[in-house]
């Protein structure tokens, strides 16, 4: 292999920095340096956008329903790794009452712990609405990360499959992509100061999802994901779900089911998420 030329090294550096930016955004100094090497900010942004699109495309084509865990295997694994009920063997009568009391104490403790894990305590800015955990910390972090990336640059991840630039045209785009009848979908958050900024395919919640991004004048963003409800999440109609109560996304991510769709709402501020959620509605034709 011939020795690399200065030009080769320059391109390699730009590529490495741009690629790394899709993993964790560069700081100002690194971005300026990369932009200089790339021949300008525009060229660097283009490179980053292309890498993001490639990542999205890879995710889309390699995450097919055929790659979902089969139900039989799922049931088998769940059953195999569920602890068997406690077996009380030959317990002397004098010890029996103590054993029952201990079992009752364990049961009450378990219920309390599970309840604490599953119920999100409303923060100072939240209402008393009960939110049950349905996504774990890792999943919440993925939503949060994607919200942060697309919220700052909605054009980055849309793979040229652009939805209309205005909210008015979004309904038809969603109807086509989500294969549902969304006759009078209500996705306007302008009353809260959030304007529609763009929408595109996204695989964070799973295949066939759409990510809608809003922004306000203060530079804050709201992200709404919609995907057809495939039943993978056991969501009750009218119930709002969220991430673990003790995680960094508590209060900023809400999940619910509505008219055959699962909706995920993520925001920079928990109070904005809370106010925005009732504004969003999907009405069947």
């Amino acid at each position: 292999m011939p020795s690399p030329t200065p030009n080769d090294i320059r391109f390699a550096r730009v590529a490495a920095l741009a690629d790394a930016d899709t993993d964790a955004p560069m700081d100002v100094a690194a971005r300026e340096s990369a932009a200089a090497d790339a021949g300008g900010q525009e060229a660097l942004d283009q490179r980053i956008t292309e890498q993001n699109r490639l990542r999205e495309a890879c995710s889309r084509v390699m995450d097919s329903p055929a790659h979902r865990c089969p139900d039989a295997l799922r049931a088998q694994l769940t059953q195999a790794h569920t602890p068997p009920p406690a077996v009380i063997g030959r317990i002397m009568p004098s010890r029996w009452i103590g054993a029952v009391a201990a079992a009752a104490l364990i049961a009450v403790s378990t219920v309390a712990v599970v309840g604490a894990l599953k119920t999100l305590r409303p923060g100072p800015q939240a209402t008393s609405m009960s939110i049950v955990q349905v996504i774990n910390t890792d999943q919440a972090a993925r939503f949060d990360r994607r919200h942060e990336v697309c919220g700052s640059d909605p054009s980055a991840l849309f793979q040229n499959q652009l939805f209309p630039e205005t909210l008015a045209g979004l309904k038809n785009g969603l109807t086509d992509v989500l294969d549902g009848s969304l006759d009078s979908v209500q996705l306007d958050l302008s009353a809260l100061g959030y304007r529609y900024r763009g929408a595109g395919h996204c695989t964070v919640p799973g295949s066939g999802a759409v990510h809608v991004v809003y922004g306000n004048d203060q530079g804050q963003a709201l992200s709404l994901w919609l995907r057809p409800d495939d039943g993978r999440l056991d969501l009750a109609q009218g119930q709002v779900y969220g991430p673990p109560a003790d995680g960094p996304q508590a209060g900023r991510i809400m999940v619910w089911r509505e008219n055959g769709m699962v909706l995920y709402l993520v925001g920079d501020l928990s109070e904005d998420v809370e106010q925005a959620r009732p504004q969003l509605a999907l009405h069947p034709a």
Partner: protein
Amino acid sequence: MDSEAFRELALEEMDAVYRMAMHLGRHPDEAAELTQETYLKAFKAEGRFELRDHGVRPWLFKILHNTFYTRMGKRKREPTIPDDWIHTATPSPQDEPPPAWDLQHLDWEQVDDRLKNAIEELPDHYRETLLLWAVEGLKYREIADVLGVALGTVMSRLYRARGILTTQLADYAKEHRITPSPPS
């Protein structure tokens, strides 16, 4: 973390583990066996798991990766690219931009099958790295931990993998004169 919480977290990742097992094993039976073995080992080693920011997924992938390569009887020392490759190697001929620059006019919707085939044809260590990054959403450092390689190796594998994909897609787009469809 108590066993019950660990169990819930781990079982929630079944789809991701099975998906990765399918990509590695390339057959549903192989994927099912890999998934079962991964969970068996994970629950046996539960005491060694530490819940950090990334959750349980990377840890399960690490077990899956080791299980797969053990099953395949592959050598532990995979071919790797030096960590400093990215700063010294030759990515493209002199005065020619890297292939990724040619993709600005690509209509991604029209190249799905081509892209899928191109990914399937990648060398195993490039393909696994790319899938952990693109499909499973892992960060470079997490991927390095899963694969047991240096961070620079992850970067260079991704750089190589993306280079191969973009070259193939650019060639395909040129051959088929694919241009972006206008926004609807």
